[in-house]
């Protein structure tokens, strides 16, 4: 029982970067654009945040600049795919490839360096035994991610702009003929996705493990992409998936520490297998899947044709 609080706490922290990136990608994909550049954007966000904080001493500025870098990378992606009509999958992959290499290069002077992040605690709530350390002593962005999830769900489901965005994702030509500027709407969605990935990367290098090492995002960008399909493009399911994945990973570590006699490699498979199993369970209704996946996902739209 002693370990319950640390397990919950670690789960929230492990799930946060996945959730941030996946929510951004979800909005991105709801508008019909698939951006596989998440890993690259997260890494560039991570190094930007780290370098900024080392140079200026401000964690806040680190987060802001990481978001900006994410937006810039996404803008480049948007220009290539939305305006020049390049293949979305390939462009996203190029973005990731470039981001991985560029972040490693830019991060050379910072290899192995580390930061001391400030500790946070919500007054009063943070002192409740068990629940306090589990839930109320986290970095603001952990709560921000939850807030973002609620905001995205509300935006997509209950606001007019959100409805228009979803319409663009379902049928860009219909939206176009209704007079909406499909390109601008998609651009906004892509930029939002980039910003979230940048923030997720910053969280990795400023909060999760406050150090820089090349490739430190270690595939979480790809997991985030997978989570949006796992979540069938619904924000609360993204949250569930992120915490499920993060939580099982943490649990397997505790199982090892307690001496459960299963090989560590087999235990490490659990988060991945669990994600597949849950996906299978919730995907059985084909009609429902088709209703949820943005119909124009991955297809470019040219208003001039």
């Amino acid at each position, binding site marked *: 029982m002693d370990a319950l609080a640390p397990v919950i706490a670690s789960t929230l922290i492990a799930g946060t970067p996945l959730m941030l990136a996946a929510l951004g990608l979800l909005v991105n994909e709801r508008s019909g654009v698939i951006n596989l550049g998440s890993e690259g954007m997260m890494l560039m966000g991570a190094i930007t945040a780290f370098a900024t904080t080392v140079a200026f001493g401000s964690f806040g500025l680190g987060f802001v600049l990481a978001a900006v870098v994410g937006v810039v990378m996404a803008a480049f992606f948007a220009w290539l795919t939305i305006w020049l009509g390049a293949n979305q999958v390939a462009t996203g992959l190029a973005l990731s490839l470039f981001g991985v290499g560029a972040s490693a290069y830019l991060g050379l002077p910072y290899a192995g360096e580390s930061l001391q992040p400030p500790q946070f605690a919500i007054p009063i709530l943070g002192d409740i035994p068990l629940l306090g350390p589990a839930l109320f002593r986290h970095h603001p962005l952990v709560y921000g991610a939850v807030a973002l999830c609620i905001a995205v769900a509300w935006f997509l489901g209950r606001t007019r702009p959100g409805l228009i965005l979803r319409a663009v994702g379902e049928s860009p030509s219909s939206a176009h003929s209704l007079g909406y500027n499909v390109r601008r709407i998609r651009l906004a969605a892509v930029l939002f996705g980039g910003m979230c990935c940048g923030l997720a990367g910053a969280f990795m290098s400023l909060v999760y493990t406050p150090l820089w090492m090349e490739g430190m995002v270690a595939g979480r960008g790809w997991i985030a992409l997978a989570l949006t399909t796992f979540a069938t493009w619904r924000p609360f399911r993204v949250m569930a998936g992120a915490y499920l994945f993060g939580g099982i990973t*943490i649990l397997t*570590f505790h199982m090892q520490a307690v001496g459960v006699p299963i090989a560590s490699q087999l235990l490490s498979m659990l988060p991945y297998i669990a994600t597949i199993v849950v996906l299978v369970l919730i995907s059985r209704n084909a009609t429902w899947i088709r209703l949820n996946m943005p119909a124009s996902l991955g297809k470019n739209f040219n208003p001039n044709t």
Partner: protein
Amino acid sequence: MSVKFLRHALSAAAVAATVVLASAAHAQQEPLKVGFVYVSPIGEAGWTWQQEQGRREMMAALGDKVSTQFVEDVPEGADAERVIRDLAQQGNKLIFTTSFGYMNPTLKVARQFPDVKFVHSTGYKTADNVAVTNARFYEARYLAGIVAGKMTKSNILGYVGAFPIPEVLQGINAFTLGARSVNPNVETRVIWVNSWYDPGKERDAALALMGQGADILTHHTDSTATVLAAEEKGVHAVAYHSDMSRFAPKAQLVAVTHHWGDYFTKAAQAVLDGTWKSDMTWGGLKEDMARVEGFNAAVPQDVLQLVEEKKQAIIAGKLTPFDGPLKDNAGKVVLESGSLNDDALTRMNYYVEGVVGKLPSK
């Protein structure tokens, strides 16, 4: 670009310039070209960083008698063979391949280049022109264990390991034996992260160990994440590979460090003198290839004295971390008396008494 990068670029240029000058001015003694293959980026701490420190020490010691080059981040597998062969083809006469996964590629290339000397780290196969080097890190781990055993309050030690290979197991077991030699109630808990190099997982593992009550952590992985987690949460840590006190001034009790400079220098000098032979060098505290250093000011004087005493005993050969009688943690007797010989050490595949858990059976 950055100062550090310019420094790397400049040192490469300086090496090139040195070679040119040396060959122009001293036609009779060409500098020995020495190549290094690193398995990961050099970084600022960790296995490769210590290898790189060794290379720099060798360059400082031998001056313009040697010129070096290195390739970093070379994956084990088919690519390694190409890189090693390329270094040999470029005229390097002494090549250090610094990861156990390079063993078979090194041997393959060595067969084709009989006049080039190769030194492979942590392997077990030699050839006429291939030597093996390793260090008895476990001796230093034993000493670190003594410090941990004396300083722990919860009697639970946490170990973040990469892969359950004998070298890592030697470390875990020696650490535990050292701790229990001064505190028989201590137990060690191990989490395997299945990667040499994933700071996120390392940190999660460190936090999980702390959640299980460990108040002294150590690791056998390549990043500073474990030690940093200890610093952040206010517990102690034993660093590995490098002294990490500048990253974690409060947490680090002591560091178990690697030092290759002497060995590299001796090997290069031997090649220059023509006296190099292929052998298996497994140096430890005595040869100064493994050290305990970076002691925290909080470590009391009597503990420091005890460590020094045990260190001298190991160097004199009177004590080894693995003296019998030795039992594994399932109760089976592994050694009745005497001490484990090198063969038994390199095949170690069990946990000693005091380590919690079970290794996958073969």
